[in-house]
């Protein structure tokens, strides 16, 4: 420990200018981000470019500091003075980690406390989020950079490694578009993200320890490259349905879902469509489904769908592109799927069987919170803290909400309300804003440079609006239901392509 502190002190002295830069950038980031909390009082507080720049500069400053401190005792090579001195590898690694903790993690923690404090969050109530954010930032932004530094001997090698990674990602995303992980599963994207984070965490720290202990640079480079490939490629190999299964397992079913079923809505059969593309290569099938057995006061949100069409002769069409579904406000479910036109023509006049699995999330436990206009931040369940102002300027009414470290996975509707009118009364309500749940992640913080996610909404009204009502529903269960529709003749629903006027 004494040796680690000795090396740490040397690094502090050596890198005092770099440390100063990180502290200044962190302070600027904290100031600019905290000022955004007062946006409603002072429109100038939302200094967009300064905020954007601070979010970009902060990790850049971290990375420069990490590069400098790790390369102060370069690991690859045979000419460094320190390798023939009685350095304990544990002390050296400890000194470097202590340095990163002291000048990256700790200032970030202080900045987070300051930023969430500006919105009125109490730091001690947000300790899980504060700590988890430190874990995420360390695993995603700091440790991988430390590993790359530990297996490179200088800036040239480091930049070469960065260039190789950049080219690899570019080639991959160009050659295999659509296979980059995440980005298409909506609230379930966190599964692939956390898979990559888990791989990074499981690989980065052992590689770092191994490299400091043994200095087997080429082997460590190989393992690091392998881990990067596993992290990126593995995410694309996780089936969407597995992600949903993980989600279901991690979430408590908050009510009995056994009574819920999905079936074809025969009463609304007239809504069914089979739309033939103009080039007649694809046919889009739209079918009305019905969710039965859902308790009153609950809403369903579709997450995904897997479907196959079986012809009487045994021919089967399986959806190659992900089919999708949507639920209307009155709970009617529509299923959409593209079918190959050749298969469609073959089966359109015979009764076919549709088999599918529908994945959806049920929301309920509605809560409403009233926020008077011109109020300071107040706590809003499932939303964080919100402030409202208005009228300002040309009768503008504003709502600003901040959520510490992540949004809760709630469906939220915000409505600006006239005095004396009921919030949920459609006539009295002014433009509403609906937030889709951003993530079903069970962890207390999301991966983001900024510790507070902001939601902003505004409206204008010729009449005076007195308050904002924020209504939210929380996810109660993630449900998977199989369905089967027998005896459909798809040709009955055919809609010819409309000609386009030129």
């Amino acid at each position: 420990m004494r040796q680690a502190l000795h090396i740490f002190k040397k690094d502090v002295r050596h890198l005092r200018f770099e440390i100063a830069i990180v502290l200044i950038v962190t302070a600027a980031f904290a100031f600019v981000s905290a000022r955004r909390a007062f946006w409603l009082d002072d429109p100038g507080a939302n200094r967009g470019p300064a905020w954007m720049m601070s979010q970009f500069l902060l990790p850049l400053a971290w990375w420069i500091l990490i590069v400098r401190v790790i390369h102060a005792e370069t690991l690859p090579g045979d000419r460094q003075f320190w390798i023939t001195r009685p350095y304990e590898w544990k002390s050296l690694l400890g000194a470097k980690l202590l340095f990163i903790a002291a000048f990256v993690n700790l200032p970030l923690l202080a900045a987070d406390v300051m930023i969430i404090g500006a919105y009125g969050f109490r730091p001690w109530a947000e300790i899980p989020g504060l700590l988890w954010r430190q874990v995420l930032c360390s695993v995603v932004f700091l440790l991988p950079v430390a590993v790359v530094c530990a297996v490179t001997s200088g800036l040239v090698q480091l930049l070469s490694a960065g260039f190789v990674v950049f080219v690899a990602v570019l080639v991959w995303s160009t050659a295999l578009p659509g296979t980059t992980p995440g980005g298409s599963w909506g609230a379930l994207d966190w599964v692939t993200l956390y898979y990559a984070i888990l791989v990074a965490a499981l690989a980065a720290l052992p590689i770092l320890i191994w490299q400091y202990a043994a200095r087997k640079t080429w082997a460590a480079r190989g393992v690091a490259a392998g881990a990067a490939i596993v992290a990126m490629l593995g995410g694309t190999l996780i089936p969407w349905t597995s992600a949903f299964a993980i989600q279901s397992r991690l979430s408590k079913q908050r009510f009995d879902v056994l009574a819920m079923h999905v079936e074809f809505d025969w009463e609304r059969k007239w809504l069914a469509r089979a739309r033939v593309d103009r080039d007649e290569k694809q046919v889009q099938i739209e079918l009305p489904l019905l969710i039965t057995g859902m308790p009153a006061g609950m809403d369903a949100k579709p997450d995904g769908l897997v479907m196959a069409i079986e012809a009487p002769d045994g021919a089967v069409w399986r959806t190659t592109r992900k089919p999708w579904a949507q639920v209307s406000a009155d709970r009617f479910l529509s299923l959409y799927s593209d079918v190959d036109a050749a298969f469609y023509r073959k089966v359109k006049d015979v009764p076919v069987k549709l088999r599918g699995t529908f994945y959806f999330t049920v929301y309920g436990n509605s809560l409403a919170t009233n926020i008077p206009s011109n109020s300071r931040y107040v706590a809003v369940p499932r939303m964080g803290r919100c402030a409202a102002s208005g009228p300002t300027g040309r009768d503008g009414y504003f709502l600003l909400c901040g959520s510490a470290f992540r949004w809760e996975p709630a469906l939220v509707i915000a409505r600006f309300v006239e005095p004396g009118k009921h919030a949920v009364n459609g006539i009295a309500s002014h433009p509403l804003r609906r937030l889709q749940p951003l993530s079903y992640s069970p962890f207390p913080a999301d991966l983001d440079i900024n510790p507070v996610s902001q939601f902003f909404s505004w409206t204008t009204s010729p009449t005076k609006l007195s308050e904002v009502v924020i209504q939210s529903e929380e996810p109660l269960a993630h449900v998977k239901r199989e369905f089967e529709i027998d005896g459909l003749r798809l040709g009955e629903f055919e809609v010819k392509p409309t000609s386009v006027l030129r």
Partner: protein
Amino acid sequence: MSGDVLRAIDLGKRFGRTMVLDGMNMAVPEGAIYGLVGPNGVGKSTTIKILMNILQPSAGGAEVFGHDLRRISPGDLTRIGYVSENQEMPEWMTVEYFMNYLKPFYPTWDEGRADELLRQFELPRDRKLRHLSHGMRMKAALASSLAYRPRLIVLDEPFTGLDALVRDELIAGLLESADGATVFISSHDLAEIESFASHIGYLDRGRLQFSEEMSSLTQRFREIEITMEGTAARVSEWPASWLRVEQSSTLVRFVDAQFEKERTMADVRRLFGEGRQVDVRPMPLREIFVTLAKAGRKAA
């Protein structure tokens, strides 16, 4: 052998397809000043880097203070001083900060001696290492490696690129401060090594050609010139220890690598009979190595 500070046992090192060291066996007794010499690029620095556990051997092994070098610990390194001509130093440190920084790593660090070394080498304490000349940097490296009274001092080509004055200062400083420590030094500067080495090893094309005490080496190498009274007989096969044999009608000149007066004279009598003048001259180290290098190339 007990009492050996450094030992190499069938040590081998290969870089790709190139064999740099091949079956090296060597022992450096305690208190010796061992010079590892040989032409450039024959594996001297590789040997030292393996002995310092900077590089891993491809074959064989080595011991330092009786420990397998692969298990060399920071504790062992507190007893070893290492200086290399191409060592990367913490350029941003001043000489004084460098010394102060290293001090806590060594339980035996002698502050008085460190001051003395800085004075002796005339090192400017407040100057950054990056602003020192090559010679001054070598002095700083040596001072920082002598201040804790190491029991083994390893020097890799320390005199390369130094002017004569700095070289003398370094050697003087080393000898004054060695204080009974074992010194292992690699160099292709034979004249310098000759002046203070007690043991010598000759490395050529990855193989240690010999490793012995300096006194025995200089004893066994002699340049011999035989002047005939008549025409010398043509000899079809020379004794194996005779190197660089040159013969004219009345003169034969060679280097005997295993000189023993009686045996050498007996060989001369056997080949050339009586009635000749024999001049026997001791050889400087430099000439011995030139002879060996030429013989080695010829054999290759």
